[in-house]
């Protein structure tokens, strides 16, 4: 029986590269499923107050606002608009709350709050549900990181959204498993 190797340390604080990841064990997927199911159960204990978003800068844009715009766009436009953040997350394994029009992070910006990461996960889910393996791969990495956070630190509304993301993630992986 395998333990899922990415369920220990805080992956936002100590990122994982996933280079040449050892995953050929027969019990690997079951280990992942157990790890996720355990975190979904713990999310039921989410009790943190709603997070306060950093105020928007005059000379930049909030990532949360960009993701809200993308949520209302068609899939192609949304994919194009979230692509810079997919690259940033894949390279640096973190995002920030505020960015400049050039795409660089705003010097006054904090790292993204849990709510912003969940919004990003929802944007990835949308693309993955349309068949994008690239976005499913990024979603899996982001959910790994979110699942290493203290479940009690999520406000209840955000915990509910994250639970939905995790359920969709599970069904997308199950669908891929079932394809021969």
């Amino acid at each position: 029986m395998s333990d899922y190797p990415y369920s220990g340390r805080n992956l936002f604080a100590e990122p994982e590269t996933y280079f040449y990841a050892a995953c050929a064990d027969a019990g690997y997927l079951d280990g992942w499923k157990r790890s996720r199911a355990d975190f979904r159960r713990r999310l039921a204990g989410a009790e943190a107050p709603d997070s306060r978003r950093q105020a928007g800068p005059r000379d930049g844009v909030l990532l949360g606002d960009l993701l809200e715009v993308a949520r209302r766009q068609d899939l192609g436009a949304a994919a194009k608009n979230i692509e810079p953040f997919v690259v940033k997350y894949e390279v640096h394994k973190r995002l920030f709350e505020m960015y400049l029009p050039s795409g660089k992070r705003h010097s006054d910006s904090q790292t993204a709050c849990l709510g912003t990461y969940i919004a990003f996960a929802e944007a990835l889910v949308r693309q993955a549900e349309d068949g994008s393996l690239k976005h499913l791969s990024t979603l899996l990495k982001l959910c790994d990181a979110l699942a290493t956070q203290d479940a009690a630190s999520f406000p209840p509304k955000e915990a509910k959204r994250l639970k939905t993301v995790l359920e969709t993630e599970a069904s997308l992986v199950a669908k891929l498993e079932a394809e021969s």
Partner: protein
Amino acid sequence: MTGVLHDSALVAAPTYRSRAYVQAMRSAGLEPARAYLLPGEEPQWKGPERFEVDLRGAGQMTRFRVTEPVTETLEHMGVECLSLASADINAAETVRALTDAPEKILIYSGRGGALLRPPVLQTGKRFLHVHGGWVPDFRGSTAFYFSLLKEGRMGASALWLDEGIDTGTVIRRRKYPAPSGVDIDCIADPLIRADLLVEVLSNLLTEGRLEGEDASALGTGTTYHVIHPVLKNIALRRHGLIEE
């Protein structure tokens, strides 16, 4: 056609891919003018030392001695080897050494994930690279796993390197059937790339030059990042590489 590629040199790190490249070139009777070797630790393989793989599904077997270092194969071939001072392809001393190289074409087999930056790309040389995926559909990292999941097959694209990720002029592309029961990272992908490389180099020897197609004419495509191990596990399972 066999012979010495007088205007081409190999730039190689000690990797399975480099081993596959030089063994394929030796089997095909193709010889680079010289080899520039990036330093590094040799990969340590545990398992059978020799493989025979039907890469194209046509019944023709490709042999691979997976534990044979690049230097040993090149010595058998009688190719002059020069050791580079740095393992970093973008280091100033590497740029200097490659600028001074008399060859115009550098057959590149560096460490995975290392992007060539302007100084080394501006040495006046052309870097010939074989990417492990059919571009533009499968650009980027671990593209062969995504290709296996999406299409049930692998691919390779020979191209001239530029600053982008697998965006250079495309010389040749080929699709390959999914390997069954063969390690993908260390055996199948390196052998597939080596197979296409030999095809391209044979053409270079015959024609004296390599024509290519502008990558932008092939469409936008998708650039992938390192595959998440859950997806890699599913790909391995589908191709008989996980014992239940």
